[in-house]
């Protein structure tokens, strides 16, 4: 093994084989996936994100929710993702065609969120939870995102999205805590996360 050019070519070849096989192969195979049409509404699924949801995705990325949350339901025989109610079926490449960048995540310090909009559709719950997760979920170690909320003097009418805070969290009388635009966008994104539509011809697990 003393010939430099030979060594170099061999190293190149071993890596190129896997690169072609794995990366290029996947690129070709996954590049062509198309939306499916929902059998009930005959809408195309997944639907594209709205402007607001895209802004919310960006907050999700910037605040690093992926550090603790994944966005995929696993198939396979040895896990309980489906039993936990995280989704009715295994996630499929089609579910991600509008995701740019992908927010897949690699840790489950928190639950999977790919179908959170189907599971928890109350906007007020999400705001309260983000403001301080321990209000809704005692013992949670999810960070508080109070910096996405704003305390303001109550105007002529209370803000419809004002948080219903009690006890230690309650703002002083005459004030209310309202979501900033970033928090509103984030929650709109979470509520829109729903990939429960069926994909014909694919197994559930």
């Amino acid at each position: 093994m003393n010939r430099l050019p030979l060594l170099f070519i061999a190293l190149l070849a071993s890596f190129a084989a896997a690169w072609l096989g794995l990366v290029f192969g996947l690129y070709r195979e996954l590049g062509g996936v198309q939306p499916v049409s929902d059998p009930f509404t005959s809408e195309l699924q997944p639907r594209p994100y709205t402007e607001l949801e895209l802004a919310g995705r960006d907050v999700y990325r910037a605040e690093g929710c992926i550090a603790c949350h994944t966005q995929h339901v696993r198939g396979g025989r040895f896990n309980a993702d489906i039993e936990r109610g995280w989704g009715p079926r295994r996630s499929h490449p089609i579910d991600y065609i509008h995701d740019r960048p992908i927010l897949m995540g690699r840790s489950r310090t928190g639950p999977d969120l790919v179908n959170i909009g189907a599971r928890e559709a109350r906007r007020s719950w999400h705001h309260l939870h983000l403001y301080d997760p321990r209000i809704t979920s005692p013992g949670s170690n999810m960070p508080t995102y109070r910096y996405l909320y704003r305390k303001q003097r109550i105007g002529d009418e209370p803000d419809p999205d004002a948080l219903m805070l009690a006890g230690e969290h309650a703002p002083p009388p005459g004030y209310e805590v309202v979501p900033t635009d970033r928090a509103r966008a984030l929650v709109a994104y979470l509520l829109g996360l729903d990939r429960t539509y069926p994909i014909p011809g694919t197994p559930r697990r």
Partner: protein
Amino acid sequence: MVTAPFNWRPHSRGRIADDGHGSAVGPQQAVDVEAARAARRRLVIDRSCRVPCLVLFCSAVVWLLAGTLLAMIASFKLHEPRFLADFAPLTFGRIRPAHLNVVAYGWAFNAALASLLWIKCRLAATPLRGGALVLAGAGLWNVGVLLGTLAILTGRGHSTAWLEFPVPAAAMLYGGFALVAIAAVLSLAARRVRRLYVSQWYLLGALLWFPWCFTVAFILLMPAPVGGVTESAIGGWYTRNLIGLWFSAVGVAIIYYLLPKLTGRPLYSHQLALLGFWALAVCYPWTGMRHLIAGPLPAWAITVSIAASVMLLIPLLAVTLNFHKTIRGRYRLVGPSPTLRFIVFAAVCYLLVGGQGVLLALRSVNEVFSLTHTIIGHAHLGMYGFFTMAMFGAMYYIIPRLTGREWASVGLIRIHFWCVGLGLALMVGVLTAGGIIQGLELNRAAAPLGHYIDEHGLSEGVGAFLSQLQVRGGAVDFLDVTRGTIPWLELRTLSGMMLLAGHIAFAVLVGLNVAGHSPPRPGPMLLSAAGRGRPLE
């Protein structure tokens, strides 16, 4: 089977090789012209490497401290989520990728580049070419890491793990690496030794593979994003190759270089080294999709990755066997020699992390423990127990040769070793144990472990819990699982404090040495041939 690589003369007396600890002065030797010439050549090489390598090593140490601080904050936040909660740049979701990138690209990469350059020059028996390129590259690289980290902390990071640095910062890393790599290749091309020792193969491979996968991943994720699940596939493929074909390759190359030197024994087997290397080069690049086992990827890609991961047993065992046979019978040298302590620790962790990794790649194990703290434990066993410890060892060996100065304090070296050794064992232990419970509760159990312990006491409770595991339970409330992980995470913070203490001791040692406050090396290498000491490298 035993073949001696060039210039590794086995030492007939079997003494401790000088690893910069200062006490190994050999017996009187006849004046040996050849040895004197070799010693002078080494001195010239070390001089040529001095400034570039020291700049890289010192940046590495600064990043090590920064990364440890970030890690401490992140770790503390996982059990005290209200700590510093209202300051957005330090929110957990930003500080975790900041830690990851600072330790990977700041600490580990700088240290790897410096060791790579020095070893390459020593093995090629030629002074470093393009020192100025290295300096420019190091500058570019480190500014890139700084900018990238600030970008993450201000919410501008990319979302793919290990690739969070945004375009400008990543481009600077790219340029910086290219400059350093050019210098490395120039030095290799000017080699005066035809024979390519096994470390050279690994380092050459690393120099080729890293820019390749970085280019592919960077382009397809940032300037021209492919979108969709392909991004996740490419991100995972990049991470795998970065870990296995850059960090692991450099780590193994260093151990292959230092073990024979420090034990005074030739490498046990060249054939075994060949087998280990080519098995790695052929199998490893195929493992890229094992982070999404049972995930949204085509089945063939996942199956191929699992098969290739299991095949990694071949290089793992071949390399470990070679290490063990090389040092066998000389294990008593490990105590007195700081370098050898760290290197042997690293070699043991290499075996452990690989064994654990092969298990984690099996579907039945992966689906239960993937995405839990077990994986974080595995990551630290590899990136810390194996790679970081190998780097510590290399730095204890190389820095005195660059500065011509010994380490200032044996006590501090001891503190460093024991703090990080025990701290790491604690960290991996608690993350693995906590992660196993977490994984079982998430995927298998009908009720959390805590309930059984409350009912039956500790030992019987654990037994009852284990006997109740079903294939499909999944009934444990998520919040109960979360609460169960908190004590383990608290222990992780404790282990982090031990690591921090060790890192401070190490930083003081390096600082004193580089600043010239340490004693000069006893036997100046040139004088050795005149009988004052014998260069054992």
